[in-house]
């Protein structure tokens, strides 16, 4: 496909591919630091067609994403920070959000494609899932494995690449060293206790889920996020949020 393009167009697309990888990793670290505001402020498209989806459904539009991901999340971090400071004055000079949690959704197995028109980029990743958690904000206390897949769309808008759509598909959250996740689900299924779709205490979303369900012995194969193939332009056939592909819809 690249041979149809000029050298300059191919170079633009290659630089775009590399920059979208960088943006994707930026998200992982900002998320790991609970820097939600910096993430949405810094790397996201702000249009009404920006979307962020999880098992519980799809947030639609920058305003909803911001409310759900910043306004609904930061208060918990600050409450934990205040509680931790009551016990340890050293907390006073620490960052209320990043000091006790690093939920780094690490990125592996990336498939990245830039559209032939150079105006968008699409990727899918798996996470190997190392997830270090704070019991309180002041104390790193343990880790778990979070198996997820990610589908992302990026747009080239006003001279820079921006995050446009994200869909997170969790397949399971398990301990490093306790229990056998597949056999435990089997034993539970034998007792009639199946994995329930959905999410406890979900934030408000425009498109309610469930969009993906954790692993279970009776769970059918979920091909929620097919990897991107070479494509011409962002459209309903090439998007992780069909029907919402205008990065300048305000």
């Amino acid at each position, binding site marked *: 496909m690249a041979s149809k393009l000029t050298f*300059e167009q191919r*170079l633009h697309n290659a*630089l775009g591919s*590399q920059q979208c990888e*960088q943006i994707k990793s*930026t998200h*992982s*670290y900002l998320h*790991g*630091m*609970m820097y939600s505001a910096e*993430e949405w402020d*810094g790397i996201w498209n702000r249009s009404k067609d920006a979307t962020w989806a*999880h098992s519980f459904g799809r947030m639609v539009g920058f305003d909803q994403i911001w409310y759900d*991901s910043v306004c*609904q*999340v*930061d*208060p*918990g*971090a600050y*409450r*934990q920070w205040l509680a931790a400071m009551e*016990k340890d004055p050293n907390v006073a*000079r620490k*960052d209320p959000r*990043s*000091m006790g*949690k*690093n*939920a*780094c959704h*690490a990125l*592996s197995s990336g498939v990245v494609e830039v559209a032939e028109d*150079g105006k968008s980029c699409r990727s899918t990743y798996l996470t*190997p899932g*190392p997830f*270090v*958690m*704070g*019991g*309180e904000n*002041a*104390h*790193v*206390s*343990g*880790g*778990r494995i979070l198996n997820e897949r990610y589908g992302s769309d990026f747009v080239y808008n006003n001279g820079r690449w921006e995050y446009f759509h994200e869909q*997170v598909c969790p397949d399971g959250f398990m*301990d*490093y*060293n*306790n*229990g056998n996740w597949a056999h435990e689900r089997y034993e539970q299924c034998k007792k009639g206790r199946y994995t329930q779709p959905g*999410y*406890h*205490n*979900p*934030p408000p979303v425009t498109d309610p889920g469930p969009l993906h369900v954790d692993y279970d012995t009776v769970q059918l194969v979920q091909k929620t996020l097919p990897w991107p193939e070479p494509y011409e332009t962002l459209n309903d056939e090439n998007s992780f949020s069909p029907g919402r592909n205008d990065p300048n819809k305000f």
Partner: protein
Amino acid sequence: MMNQRYTNEELVTRLWDKEIVKDLMARRCYYKQNDWRQRELDELWVRNPENQADMSLSNNLGYFVGPDDIKAYYVDGIAEKRQRQLELVKKTNPAAEYGNSVMNAHTYHTIMVELSGDGLWARYLAYDHGHQTDPQENGTAKGYWTSGHILADLIKEDGQWKILHIKQNHDLTIPAAPVPGAGGGGFGGPPPEAEGEGAPGGPPEGGEGPGGPGGPPPMPDMGPDPYEDEYGTPTVALPYVVKWAWNDLPKQMPNTYEPHESYDPTISYGPAGHPDQLRSWR
């Protein structure tokens, strides 16, 4: 569409420079797994004596600075550890040789590379998800999960990318075997003093709305992290404090869009750029 500052030829060079940096750090990851530590210093790190005087390798206790201190910690230290391990193994397996029953793996992913405007300095960040297995006294061995993040400065020396600084910020060690009452916990910090604080439904999980999939696992006090056996005595004792997790990472992440123009030691991953020298998290 193109960046106006650079010619297309320069942009292609910048494109490849970032890939070469990623490849070089991946090689470093494999060299470390193979205990090829002297070879790593010889092949992948700076060779110019002036640059070598500044080279540093840090762990959670601080920075080993200069080729001699780095070698003493990183090369001689692992040789001594392997010798101690071999002596243990030989008690039940007298024919054992170097590294018997030892295994370690590291993986570098979630990579960011910031290439300076002048193209001579790269700032690198990756996450390291790995494991290590250590032989024990009685002819057995124990496996551990390890995780942390790697920050590195690389510079162009005679046209070749070379490592100048590496910060190995170790976040967590978790035994592979179940620990009664640990609930998935690990070494790395004191146990939580109370459960269920914070937002309803468990601690917030970042951008996934209030609550999250699972709360913090309870954990007993498990004593010192076995990973600390390798820490040694650094040249400059400026620590990475696991208790405060990624408190300093906001100041240290490579830039996503606009790179710094040229090498700046005050934001480097060497001791001169240590974040504790800044007075507050802001």
